[in-house]
């Protein structure tokens, strides 16, 4: 069914899940002029303006569009891996209505002009919202902080050195201190590069059996501990970019208990997969930080339930065959995820590990709140960025069907249950599952 952009739309008889209000009811949702009018029980066909299109959403879920807090897009500099256009197509098919792209591009997004370029380029070519994070240090070199004030004014939503850690504690202290004056969020990959060394996967018996060098969990925990001390010293606003292990959760728990402005993400890979999925050296499961043990995965899901982990992100990282079809040691880390993050997360819902509303909160409401973005909610007046989910439709992830330019999905050929069937951005349907 083709729907006019201008006419109001009523999504009738849907299971409305709005984590921003702890709302999970069967009801109707009305949008008009790109904005959510209301979402409640019994608006009905009678209660809507004349000319309203009605979409029956019986047995389907309607939820805020996902806000993916961490995705690498190849622009500028690596358009062969992903463009805003291709990434946004993948996002739309995965229910992601807002992509937060990372600054580790070429050139690095570390000056206001590049932020401006990204925003213009995305505006002209992407079908979902795109907001960049800017680099925390110039050239991602970990030495000198970037123009946090001007970058934020230009549209950077947070500051990060991508998958690089800032090893110099003094630089981190000053950046946290300075960022506080602008209420800027610092997002940090907590991995000590010296402890990573030449490691390529989780340090474990399994790694030893594969003959691969491991990365200890302490590489993460040590850096996180240091960061928490810096946050305590500076009162800065801090977000751990990708937490993977149970030990880190203890550190995080203490920091939150102490009232520090600390939040954290886990990637969809780390909450749904473990190191054993690497199996026979499958390089598509080589990610950074590495997949950990099953106990760690379970601990992450538990932390998600308790709100200790705030955000689940895709950690979308397109790698082409040249960088993936290599021995495990030599393959580039990274997995695509925009298109599969929700469906992979639904696995946890279906097997009873997680409530749907909890998953959706971590993928939409919380990231929007942390980044100060208007989405992540179905409240009246919010932008009509929303998704319709069929929780029960079975499908198989076929890499050739994926919209991403690169096909390095860890869910290659996986059987899935449930997916996005319609994605709406600013009131317009940008994706429909045939």
């Amino acid at each position: 069914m083709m729907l006019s952009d201008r006419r109001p739309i009523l999504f009738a008889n849907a299971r409305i899940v709005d984590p921003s209000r702890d709302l999970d009811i069967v009801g109707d949702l009305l949008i008009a002029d790109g904005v959510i009018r209301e979402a409640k029980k019994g608006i009905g066909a009678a209660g809507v303006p004349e000319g309203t299109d009605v979409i029956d959403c019986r047995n389907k879920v309607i939820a805020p569009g996902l806000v993916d807090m961490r995705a690498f897009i190849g622009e500028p500099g690596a358009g062969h891996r992903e463009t805003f256009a291709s990434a946004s197509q993948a996002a739309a098919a995965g229910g992601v209505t807002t992509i937060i792209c990372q600054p580790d591009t070429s050139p690095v997004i570390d000056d206001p002009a590049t932020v401006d370029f990204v925003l213009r380029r995305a505006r002209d070519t992407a079908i979902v919202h795109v907001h960049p994070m800017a680099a925390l240090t110039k050239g991602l070199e970990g030495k000198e902080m970037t123009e946090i004030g001007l970058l934020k004014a230009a549209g950077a939503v947070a500051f990060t050195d991508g998958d690089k850690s800032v090893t110099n504690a003094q630089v981190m202290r000053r950046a946290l201190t300075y960022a506080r004056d602008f209420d800027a969020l610092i997002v940090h990959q907590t991995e000590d590069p010296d402890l990573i060394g030449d490691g390529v996967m989780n340090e474990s018996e399994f790694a030893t059996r594969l003959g691969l060098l491991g990365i200890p969990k302490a590489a993460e925990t040590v850096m996180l501990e240091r960061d928490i001390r810096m946050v305590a010293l500076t009162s800065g606003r801090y977000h751990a970019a990708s937490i993977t292990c149970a030990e880190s959760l203890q550190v995080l728990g203490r920091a939150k208990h102490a009232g520090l402005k600390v939040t954290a993400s886990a990637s969809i890979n780390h909450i749904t997969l473990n190191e054993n999925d690497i199996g026979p050296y499958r390089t598509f499961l080589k990610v950074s930080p590495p997949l950990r043990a099953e106990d760690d995965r379970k601990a992450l899901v538990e932390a998600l339930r308790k709100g200790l982990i705030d955000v689940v992100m895709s950690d979308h990282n397109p790698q082409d065959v040249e960088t993936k079809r290599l021995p495990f040691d030599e393959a580039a880390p990274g997995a695509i995820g925009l298109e599969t993050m929700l469906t992979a997360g639904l696995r946890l819902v279906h097997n009873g590990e997680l409530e749907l509303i909890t998953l959706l909160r971590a993928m939409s409401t919380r990231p929007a709140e942390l980044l100060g973005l208007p989405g992540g909610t179905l409240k009246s007046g919010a932008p009509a960025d929303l998704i319709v989910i069929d929780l029960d439709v079975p499908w198989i992830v076929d890499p050739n069907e994926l919209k991403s330019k690169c096909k390095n999905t860890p869910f290659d050929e996986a059987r899935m249950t449930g997916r996005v069937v319609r994605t709406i951005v600013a009131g317009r349907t940008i994706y429909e599952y045939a």
Partner: protein
Amino acid sequence: MTIAPKSTFVLNHRNLLGIEGLSAAEISGLLDLGEEFVELNRKIEKKTTSLRGRTQINMFFEVSTRTQASFELAGKRLGADVMNMSASSSSMRKGETLIDTAITLNAMHPDILVVRHHASGAVELLASKLDCSVINAGDGAHEHPTQALLDALTIRRNKGRIEGLLVAICGDILHSRVARSNIILLNQMGARVRVVAPSTLLPPGIERFGVEVARDMREGLNGADIVMMLRLQRERMNGSFVPSVSEYFHYWGLDEKKLAYAKPDALVMHPGPMNRGVEIDSIVADGAQSLIREQVEMGVAIRMAVLEALSRNLPNA
């Protein structure tokens, strides 16, 4: 022809190491005396004889143009024999310790030593080993008492008072001895002091110095009678304490727009040397509200006042 000041104020200290420890009465006494020297300095015959026969050594371990010139001129106008020693020519370069330098100098029987040193507390250390009067011309990030006094004189002459004024000190508070001396003096004289800087340039515990703290200029300059800008050194502006010159100027540089947040009759000060386009816009620096050139004039007068007031307390005076 010599003109003696009418004021008979005596500073009952051997040294002037900082504003800390000076009473409001002592500060006022110095300002009153300074006022008389302003008049004198505007005459053709500027010379007096109150320091005749005295030896003043200016010992600058850290480079300075205006402060050193100002002290030299002040000493000469009071009739002292003035000798300048600078870091480049001093034995410190050859590895002599500060204490040995002090002992050597002491043997030459100077009456007044004016010292600038890059290390906080170095002037006090020298003073403890010397028999003469010592004036601190700036030590590290500790104190610069004559700067605070000349600023106070400039303010008092333009506003008629210090008490009750709101003075906003803006910029690199962390590394600034000028800020510390000014905060102490202005508090002592009953002014309201506000410091304005990015958090990276605010020293820990500053809120317990009796100042209000603001992180942005709109809030910081609101209602200010005096806007005192501080120099930001080059090595601190490229990502270590602030990201860049352009960001610093955008948020904390004093331009006409930000000056408009202050009172309409607010006056602008800067201890110099200025970085135009970094902490201050040329239009403001050279504008009608600027007191920056007057500060330099007051510098000579206030240093004469300090030399005079201390010398009255010297032995055999």
